C-alpha cells in the first residue's frame, strides 16, 4: 500500500465531516472515491494533503505516519494534488504554473526537469501551444489540463485528482479520463475523487463509495459498476 488511511475522522466545529473511514491506495493503481455532493470526498482529499486537521485516525504514506505534518512537506514526500475547481494561478503563464507544480524540486535547471516538462506537454499538446498564455484567460478544459499537468510536475508518487471532470463537456470528459489512465500506466498512482461514477468506475482498479462521511461500499471498479444499487443511486437510469 502506498497510502493507508485508518479510522480517519475530520470535524468541522462539532460536526463530523468524515466518520471513521479506512482505505488504502495500492501502488500503481487508480483508486476512486465516488459519492454525491456533500459526501465528504473533497474533505478527504484535503485531509490527505494536509489542509484539514485530523480529529482521529492516521494517514500513512509509504508506511510513514504523515497524519500531522504540514502540506508542503507532504508535497516533498511525493503527494501532489489537482484541487477541485482547478485552482490554477490565473495571473501566471502556463509555464509559470507548471514551475509552481515543481516548487518543491530544486533541480529546475536539470534535464530531468526538462523531461518532465516535455512529458506534460506530450500528454497535453494544448498546453504546449499555449506556454506563454496567462492561465486565467484559458478555457475550463485547458485549465483542468494545466492543473493535472502541474500536479505531475512535482514528480509525485501519488497524485490526488479532485473532480477533474467537473463542469467539462462530455467530449472533454473522455479525454481527461483517457489521460488519467495514461498517467497511471506511466507509473503514477492515482487517487481519483469523482461524481462522474460511470467514467471513474470504468477506469479505477478499486473504488469506494462515500455517503455522509462514511465508506458504504468498496470493491473493484467493475464490481461496483455492475451492482444494481450503485447503478440506481450513482449511474442513474434512463429518464
Amino acid at each position, binding site marked *: 500500500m502506498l497510502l493507508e488511511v485508518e479510522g480517519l475522522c475530520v470535524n468541522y466545529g462539532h460536526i463530523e465531516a468524515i466518520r471513521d473511514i479506512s482505505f488504502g491506495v495500492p501502488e500503481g493503481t487508480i483508486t476512486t472515491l465516488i459519492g454525491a455532493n456533500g459526501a465528504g470526498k473533497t474533505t478527504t482529499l484535503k485531509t490527505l*494533503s*494536509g*489542509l484539514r486537521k485530523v480529529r482521529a485516525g492516521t494517514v500513512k504514506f509509504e508506511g510513514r505516519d504523515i497524519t500531522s505534518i*504540514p*502540506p*508542503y512537506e507532504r*508535497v*516533498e514526500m511525493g503527494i*501532489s*494534488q489537482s*484541487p477541485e475547481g482547478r*485552482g*490554477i*494561478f*490565473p*495571473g*501566471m503563464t502556463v509555464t*509559470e504554473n507548471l*514551475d*509552481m*507544480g515543481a*516548487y*518543491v524540486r530544486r533541480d*529546475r535547471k536539470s534535464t530531468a526537469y526538462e523531461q518532465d516538462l516535455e512529458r506534460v506537454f506530450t500528454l497535453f499538446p494544448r498546453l504546449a501551444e499555449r506556454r506563454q498564455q496567462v492561465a486565467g484567460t484559458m478555457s475550463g478544459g485547458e485549465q483542468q489540463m494545466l492543473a493535472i499537468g*502541474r500536479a505531475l510536475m*512535482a514528480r509525485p508518487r501519488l497524485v490526488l485528482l479532485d473532480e477533474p471532470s467537473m463542469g467539462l463537456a462530455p467530449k472533454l470528459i473522455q479525454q481527461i479520463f483517457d489521460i488519467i489512465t495514461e498517467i497511471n500506466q506511466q507509473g503514477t498512482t492515482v487517487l481519483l475523487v469523482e461524481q462522474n461514477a460511470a467514467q471513474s468506475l470504468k477506469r479505477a482498479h478499486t473504488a469506494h463509495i462515500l455517503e455522509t462521511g462514511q465508506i458504504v461500499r468498496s470493491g473493484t471498479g467493475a464490481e461496483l459498476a455492475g451492482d444494481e444499487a450503485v447503478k440506481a443511486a450513482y449511474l442513474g437510469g434512463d429518464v
Partner: protein
Amino acid sequence: MDLNFSFFFSNFPELTVTGLAFGAIYALIALGYTMVYGVLQLINFAHSEVFMYGTFAALWFTMATVGGGNPGGFQTLAILIGALLSAMAMSALIALILERVAYRPLIKRNAPRLIALISAIGASFVLAELMGLRDRVTGWVGLDDDLRDYVGRARINNSMPNIVDNKVLFSIGDADVRMVDVIVIVAAIVMMVAVDQFVRRSRLGRGIRATAQDPETAALMGVNSTRVIQLTFLLGGLMAGVAAFLYMLKIEVTKFDVGFLLGVKAFTAAVLGGIGNLRGALVGGLVLGVVENWGSAILGSEWRHVVAFVLLVVILLFRPTGILGESLGKART
C-alpha cells in the same frame, strides 16, 4: 489661492528632482504596504512604525559611531553602510514581530479583514508609544542615565549628526542637483529593481506570487504559507529600513510619530500605482512625490497634502485599480 506658474516653470528641474527624491522614499515604504496587501489582502497599518523604528536605528548607530567631529572618507562610508544595515535589521525585526503578534493569530482564526486592520492600528499605537515612552522604559530598568543620549527627549525631534557633505554634483539648467538627492533616488530604484527581480525570478518569489493568487492551492504545491507571509513582511521591513536610512540622510530628524503621515502618504502611493503591484509602488511613489512638489509650488505648500489626495481621487476615477493596476494579487472582482 494664487496660482504661481512663473515660479513653477522657472524652477521646474529643481522641484522635480527634490520631488523625486522624497517620492523615492515613499516608494520604498509603499513596497511594504503593497506586498502585504498582495499576499494577505490586508492594509498593514503598522508598517509606518516599521519605518519609524528604522529611522531610530540609523540615528542611534550614527550617534554611537560618529562621536565628535566629522569623520572623513572611508570611515564615513563605513558608518553609512552600518547605519543602513542597522536600519534594515531593525525594521525587518519589527516587521517580523508585527507579523507574529498582530497578524498570525488573526490569520489562523481566519478573522474578517477589517478586524485585522484594527489590530494593525492597535499595533501601530503600541509601537509608536513605546518609542515615545522609551525614556520611561529605560527608567524602570535603571539604564536611564547610561542611555540618556539615545532615549532622552522621547517625544520630540531627535536629529542625526550630519555626515554626508551635501555638495552639488551637477546642474540642470540653473538648478543644482545635490549629492543626497542622487543617493536617495539611485538607492531607492536599485532596491526596488532588486526586489522586483527577486519576486519575479526566484523560487521564493514565485511562492509569494502563488500565495497571493490562491493560498490554498499554493499550499498544495508545497509552498509553506507561513514562511511566505514571513518573507513578505521581511522584504517589506527591509525596504522600509532602506527608506528609513535614506530619510535620515535627507531629513536628518526623526520622532516617535514620524511614521504616521509618511505611512498614509506611502499607502496612498501604493494605491496610486496599483496596490499589490511592485512596480506600481515605485511609479506611485515617484509620481506622488513629484506632483506634491509641483502642487506646492503652484498653490503653496499648505495645499501639498490636498494635492496628493486629489491626485489619488482623479487617478482612481480614470483607472480604478491605479496607474499600473494590480498584479501580485489576484484581480479582485
